[in-house]
């Protein structure tokens, strides 16, 4: 494998790339065995950002863990909130109101747009196209403004709660979404004009990091990277949660399974997300946005002042939380990076006995070796960017 070329025999060396490398995503440390410029073996070394998130969950009440999920995939925190609260709701066996479902869909898709924009921006920057990052940031900033309007925070949103959402989706937010849908398509086309036809972009991405559908499935890839390999698997379509089965959207797939297809898939997903938001905002019914179970969602503040029973529920919720029935659940969603699953084991108390996160970044990173073997060193940058790992999530 190593000594193909008799004329130029070089020694195999080991190169450490990251965790401080400027074009590495976050704190990824790659150990590369290289023969000349070619990769013989690539091994990700992770864990620099390990914070023991799963262990923290065991020491917190169910509702108190939501802010910590923000810090997993901090580029699209709404999806993490959603994965967590959805699995707790499954454990409790409660059904949330219709309005909350639509709000959650709109919010999750907004964060998908924010996540993909940054993924593409950073990817282009890594390969030398700086302006895309600036344009993508401008659009992302607009999405973050909507988040600020909606829940008061730009990155660590903590918007969803067990049993619903924390604040109402106001008319102002709806208008902002409508304006976004008006504004973005031409901007996305601009990125495509700059990148899709560009010969440098094509050369750096086409045929790089190819994974066949079979390989991708074997390695446990998920999300846009899997779909680029031609596997039409999207949890929103195949195991619909919330109201995705009522919305009309397409799942883009690629054919070659290379970096270029992954890029095209992401671009198309941004467009599809906008379609989903348009429908979700349009169809959003009126009504309550929290379940009517006072133990799980304490009554609104004005009631707490007047009503003794409401006050008791409020005190109990804050100081003791709520008990979940004994059992185990796994529930997963399609986050911008792939399948984000939360597995909870409950012993009947008010804290999870064990919580396990199936984070897409961690799983997707397993494919780095398969993709980069035999490629050039510079291609590793494109490969990593095309997977878009986020280390808050990967290292947990």
């Amino acid at each position, binding site marked *: 494998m190593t000594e193909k070329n008799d004329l130029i025999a070089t020694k195999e060396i080991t190169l450490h790339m990251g965790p401080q490398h400027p074009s590495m995503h976050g704190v990824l440390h790659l150990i590369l065995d290289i023969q000349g410029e070619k990769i013989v073996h690539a091994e990700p070394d992770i864990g620099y950002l390990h914070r023991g998130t799963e262990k923290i969950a065991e020491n*917190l009440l169910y509702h*108190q*863990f*939501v*802010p*910590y999920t*923000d810090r997993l995939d901090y580029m699209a925190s709404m999806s993490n909130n959603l994965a967590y609260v959805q699995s707790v709701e499954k454990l409790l066996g409660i059904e949330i109101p219709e309005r909350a479902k639509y709000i959650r869909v709109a919010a999750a898709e907004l964060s998908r747009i924010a996540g993909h924009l940054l993924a593409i921006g950073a990817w282009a920057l890594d390969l030398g196209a700086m*302006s895309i990052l600036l344009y993508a940031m*401008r659009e992302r*900033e*607009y999405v973050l*403004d909507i988040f*600020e*309007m*909606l*829940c*008061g*925070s730009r990155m*660590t949103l*903590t918007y969803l709660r067990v049993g619903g959402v*924390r*604040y109402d989706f106001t008319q102002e937010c709806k208008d902002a979404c409508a*304006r976004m849908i008006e*504004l973005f398509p031409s901007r996305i086309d*601009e990125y495509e*004009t*700059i*990148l899709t*036809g*560009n*010969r440098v972009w094509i050369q750096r991405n086409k045929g790089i990091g190819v994974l066949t559908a079979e390989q991708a499935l074997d390695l446990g890839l998920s999300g846009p990277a899997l779909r680029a390999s031609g596997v039409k698997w999207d949890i929103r379509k195949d195991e619909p949660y919330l109201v995705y089965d009522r919305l009309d959207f397409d799942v883009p797939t690629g054919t070659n399974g290379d970096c270029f297809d992954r890029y095209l898939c992401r671009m198309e997903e941004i467009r599809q997300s906008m379609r989903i938001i348009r429908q979700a905002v349009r169809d959003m019914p009126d009504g309550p946005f929290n379940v009517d179970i006072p133990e799980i969602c304490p009554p609104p*503040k004005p009631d*707490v*002042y007047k009503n003794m029973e409401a*006050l008791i529920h*409020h*005190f109990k919720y*804050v*100081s003791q939380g709520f008990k979940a029935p004994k059992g185990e659940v796994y529930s997963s969603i399609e986050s911008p990076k792939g399948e984000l699953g939360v597995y909870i084991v409950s012993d009947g108390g008010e804290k999870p006995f064990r919580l396990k996160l199936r984070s897409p970044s961690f799983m997707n990173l397993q494919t780095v070796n398969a993709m980069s073997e035999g490629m050039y060193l510079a291609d590793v940058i494109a490969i990593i960017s095309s997977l878009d790992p986020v280390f808050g999530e990967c290292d947990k």
Partner: protein
Amino acid sequence: MNEGKGRFDIMELIKKVLFTDFVKGLVITFGYNVSMDSVITVKYPDEEKWIPYRRFRGLHTLNRTADGRELCVACELCSKACPTRCITVIPMEDNTGRGISDRVAKVWKVDLVRCLFCGYCEDACPTRAVRLGREYELACFDRNCAVKNREELLRPQPVPEEMSGGVVAKARLRTTPDGIEVVADLSETRKRRV
């Protein structure tokens, strides 16, 4: 190879020689260079400052009633609700009318180094005493000044509650004994360009 494919290749070649792919991209970037209303930069902190929306979760504030009495009844619910346990409340008796009841906070402090700005304390407070305000310039020189005390938090916030926010206000720098402050002029605001 058939005829059609050959012609296609020639078109591609011409495009390649003329650098149409680069030119198309450069037209866009150049377009942004010449048009002045596409400048989205906010000149923070020298000239402008972002005023967040009303729901913004920034530095905590402790509120008073209209007649100046403290709303906090030192029930310690906020410190119980906090996921990071970063609020310390020590209650005491005081019937001089400082608070709305006879029980007031002797100490109420929050450690911002550990705070997640989740707003759960605000949700937990039964009297709406604590609220996450719109102050976000929290950098300081040592850890001690990241612990904010009751006295400091009781001061009114610079951005009034009535203002809905989401605008860029004119600002200027002011030197204070603790460092430099960005003072926003709330009467002169503009929307952020998108």
